[in-house]
């Protein structure tokens, strides 16, 4: 039922893994494996750090649990359609077992992986080998299989009693409809009797099976069903009453002993046994259990039971606890000392107040509430179980971790080099069709009203002009009065600036032009015409200015999506103001969502979302730079530029560490 299980270290080494299906075995070798997707999307991007929610990818469900002290990740992959309820328990138990079995070997391996300047001895270079040997030696695979089977077993009885119960009810109903058989007083006696008979029958059945299958080992092993299982027995007893005999003869038993119905009954029983009898009795009852599964059954007899394994660990823990208790009794100095020696392990209780404080701090920097919560949650999840080293306080540890994860979120994962992309696209299209003029690179600016789309469009335009590109501005804001005129002023200014700075037209063709069709027209049509015009006149870049719209206005969002679907611009840039707080999430996610929903209706085209962000009015916010974090967190797209003033040169590139510093100061 599972597809894949893996135990790996955070630095990428897989310590142990198993694929249960051949398709997944080949998939897990590639970089497209769901586990990699989990690591990339959930761990690195800081999303979905919630272990209960899990993660879904390509029809696979992925659940995981982390061990932060050692930096281990335990992952289980199973088909998304299967609601496997025992997965969390399986993960927990696997984690406990694995760590308690291999703790010393793991520690030496992990020390060797994080050894900075300390030269390793040749012994620790083989730590990985030793661990592998040890995994082999302790037959971890068998232990894991047993753990899995037990859990799969415990899940089934939860369902079977219901079935039996229903069956019993049905029988009761049929009894009621045919009152001929017996009266109520008679029932308890017969039930008891029959139960006894059934048991005798079963022993015989099992004995027979044992003789048939495995050379008479079954005789000594006849199990006595535990009292908790009397209820299903009673139900079957009632089933027996249908034949209405007070006494069961050997012939009857022989008649009843047809194998097919017995087989349908038997697996349920045996699986019940495994779960009910705990593992101590396992060896006795396990003999015919194992016969059905062919996983190394000969070896399984001398496997240490889970309790033994865990006992080893709890012994260690008990020792530790004793030590710790002693320490608590002594002064606070020893507490300090334990910190210095790096023995303090961070717990949820240690972290909670600090995390709450950090969350408040982030919110005071104008980070949206949900985002601040999620960031702190993920930082907390990554810190629980870590050892506090040196003189670091919990707070500084949290701050460090937060700064790392802030940097991760803000660092772009795609290229932000627009000039390069422009060049690439033009050289590609000229390679494809050398005679026709190359396709222009189209940038669409979208956003809510009054965030500075046109202003920042003109700044970007100035930058492109300086880099020797020819730019066409398409005035697709056909709604707000004065929008076209505003752009015309910009074009005139930039043209004048261009001739002043020497980047003038060489062959009579203008470096910058405005493409407009007045007001009230369909924006998508204008943009299409503009791109065609640009191609004809060999412009390098088309900047499409759209009308501002609120994210909740569905007709307008549909119109925008149409513009995107019709023209398929190379980049869709969301312009957002840095002043915005909680609204940032709503704006950006709704723009992204509706662009994806409405523009992908054709199905053929790839769905388009926001490709990049321009953060405007950055000069007005002092150090409350939270919007930068909120916006990059929501879409995962990079902030391409930061607008910070009224002149054409007031466009900057984002410096991630400045933002991180400002957020944490």
């Amino acid at each position, binding site marked *: 039922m599972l597809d894949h299980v893996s135990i790996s270290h955070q630095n990428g080494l897989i310590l142990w893994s198993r694929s249960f299906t051949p398709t997944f075995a080949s998939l897990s070798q590639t970089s497209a494996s769901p586990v990699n997707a989990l690591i990339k999307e959930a761990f690195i991007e800081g999303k979905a750090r919630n272990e209960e929610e899990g993660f879904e990818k390509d029809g696979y469900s992925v659940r995981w649990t982390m061990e932060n002290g050692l930096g281990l990740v335990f992952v289980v992959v199973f088909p998304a359609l299967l609601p496997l309820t025992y997965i969390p328990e399986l993960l927990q138990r696997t984690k406990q077992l694995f760590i308690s079995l291999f703790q010393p070997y793991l520690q030496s391996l992990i020390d060797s992986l994080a050894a900075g300047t300390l030269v390793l001895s040749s012994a620790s270079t083989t730590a990985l080998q030793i661990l592998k040997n040890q995994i082999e030696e302790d037959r971890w695979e068998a232990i894991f299989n047993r753990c899995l089977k037990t859990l799969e077993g415990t899940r089934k009885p939860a369902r079977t009693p219901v079935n039996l119960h229903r069956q019993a009810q049905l029988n009761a109903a049929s009894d009621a409809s045919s009152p001929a058989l017996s009266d109520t007083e008679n029932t308890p006696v017969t039930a008891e009797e029959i139960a006894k008979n059934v048991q005798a029958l079963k022993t015989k059945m099992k004995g027979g099976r044992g003789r048939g299958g495995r050379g008479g080992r079954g005789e000594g092993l006849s199990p006595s069903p535990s009292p908790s299982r009397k209820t299903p027995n009673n139900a079957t007893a009632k089933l027996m009453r249908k034949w209405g005999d007070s006494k069961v003869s050997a012939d009857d038993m022989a008649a009843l002993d047809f194998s097919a119905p017995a087989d349908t009954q038997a697996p349920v029983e045996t699986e019940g046994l495994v779960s009910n009898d705990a593992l101590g009795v396992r060896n006795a009852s396990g003999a015919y259990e194992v016969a059905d599964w062919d996983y190394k059954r000969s070896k399984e007899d001398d496997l240490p039971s889970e309790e033994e394994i865990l006992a080893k660990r709890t012994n260690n823990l008990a020792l530790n606890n004793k030590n710790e208790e002693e320490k608590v009794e002594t002064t606070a100095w020893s507490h300090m000392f334990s910190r210095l020696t790096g023995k303090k392990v961070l717990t949820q209780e240690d972290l909670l107040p600090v995390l709450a404080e950090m969350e408040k701090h982030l919110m005071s920097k104008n980070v949206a509430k949900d985002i601040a919560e999620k960031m702190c949650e993920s930082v907390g999840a990554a810190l629980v179980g870590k050892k506090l080293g040196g003189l670091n306080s919990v707070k500084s540890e949290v701050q460090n971790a937060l700064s790392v994860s802030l940097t991760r979120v803000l660092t772009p994962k795609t290229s932000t080099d627009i000039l390069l992309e422009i060049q690439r696209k033009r050289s590609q299209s000229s390679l494809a069709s050398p005679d026709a003029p190359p396709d222009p690179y189209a940038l669409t600016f979208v956003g809510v009203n009054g965030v500075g789309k046109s202003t920042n469009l003109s700044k970007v335009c100035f930058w492109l002009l300086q880099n020797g590109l020819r730019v066409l501005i398409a005035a697709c804001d056909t709604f707000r009065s004065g929008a076209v005129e505003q752009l015309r002023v910009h074009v005139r200014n930039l043209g004048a600036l261009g001739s002043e700075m020497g980047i003038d037209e060489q062959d009579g063709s203008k470096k910058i032009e405005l493409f407009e069709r007045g007001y009230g027209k369909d924006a998508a049509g204008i943009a299409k015409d503009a791109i065609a015009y640009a191609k004809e006149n060999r412009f390098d870049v088309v900047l499409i200015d759209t009308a501002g719209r609120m994210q909740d206005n569905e007709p307008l969002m549909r119109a925008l999506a149409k513009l995107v679907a019709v023209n398929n611009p190379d980049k869709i840039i969301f312009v957002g103001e840095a002043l915005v707080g909680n609204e940032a999430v709503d704006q950006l996610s709704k723009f992204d969502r509706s662009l994806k929903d409405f523009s992908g209706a054709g199905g053929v085209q790839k769905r388009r979302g926001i490709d990049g962000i321009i953060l405007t009015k950055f000069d007005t916010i002092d150090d409350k730079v939270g919007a930068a974090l909120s916006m990059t967190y929501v879409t995962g797209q990079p902030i391409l530029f930061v607008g910070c003033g009224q002149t054409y040169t007031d466009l900057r590139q984002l410096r991630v560490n*400045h933002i991180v510093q400002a957020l944490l100061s």
Partner: protein
Amino acid sequence: MSVPQGKVISTDTAATSEVEPISSLLAHPLLQDPKFVAAAGGLVVLLIFLSLFRSGKKTSRRSGPTTVLLVGPSDSGKTSLFAKLVHNSYPQTHTSIQPSITTFPFSSPFSDGQTKPVKLVDLPGHPRLKDELKKYVKEASVVVFVIDVQALVRNSAAVAEEIPPILTALSNLSVTTQTFEPIKVLFLAHKTDLLVRPTPSNDQSPPDLPETSLATAKDRVKSILTREMDKLKSSRGGSGGKIEGMSRVSGSSSGSFFSRLFGSGSANTSVGLGEGDEEIDENLIWGGKGSFDWNDVEGVEISFGASGLGIPSNDNSQKEKEQGNGLDEIKNFIWEV
């Protein structure tokens, strides 16, 4: 001892140990002045303290073992290479989240029993974790840029874009530290075994690769990367207008006097690179006019190599596998530094 005891006792012990032996100088009237002695002693202590502090902060890349960085895009085989070099085993890997750093005795590729300590750092390749590079680049004496030679055909543009930041950092480092030997960079065409037809048998790890396919892999990587770097140069190396980085966010001056004195403190260790590093000059790597040339990169010596690890062995069989020549080039490269 002509020094009046009472006066010396009032000063710092550090001062006394320096003052005591030279008895003739002690006659100087200034030294008889307890205030002066106290001030001098204080100064000495302060200087010692500061020098200790400074030396703790700046670690020279020339001290200690040779530091080798494994960089490159995700899924190119850095962690496998790391495991093979350090642990001599070849497990399967996931995408890395953390860098792994280790110092280990690197045995000579000529199997003459010699070893030398090498610090090997495997950096995660995911673009969001690019920041990790900054922490280690200062100590690097060798950088191995690992490239998946088979995937390069598809993602050449993305791979090439990762190169300039690394080269810029190294080149700046080597220019500013005024070291005479350049930092060596090896562009390693990894997974070369995938180019070999028929697929080499799995009983060797690393597999024995024919010279021709190693050469093909090297050529392929070199030509593709040169082409892409050429494009990058023409779009970036030009004199066109550049967008500056934003200035420091106002109001976020870093804390009190003490936190500035003692480094950037606890809050921002990952940020504590100083502002000088912000605007590093990319021009150092682009060279003069014309097309891009690997030799133009200042302070960095670039070479190309090829390697292959074969198919990861899933069986945990412990038999020593025969060593092919798959890793010879990178081993030689590291050894020769």
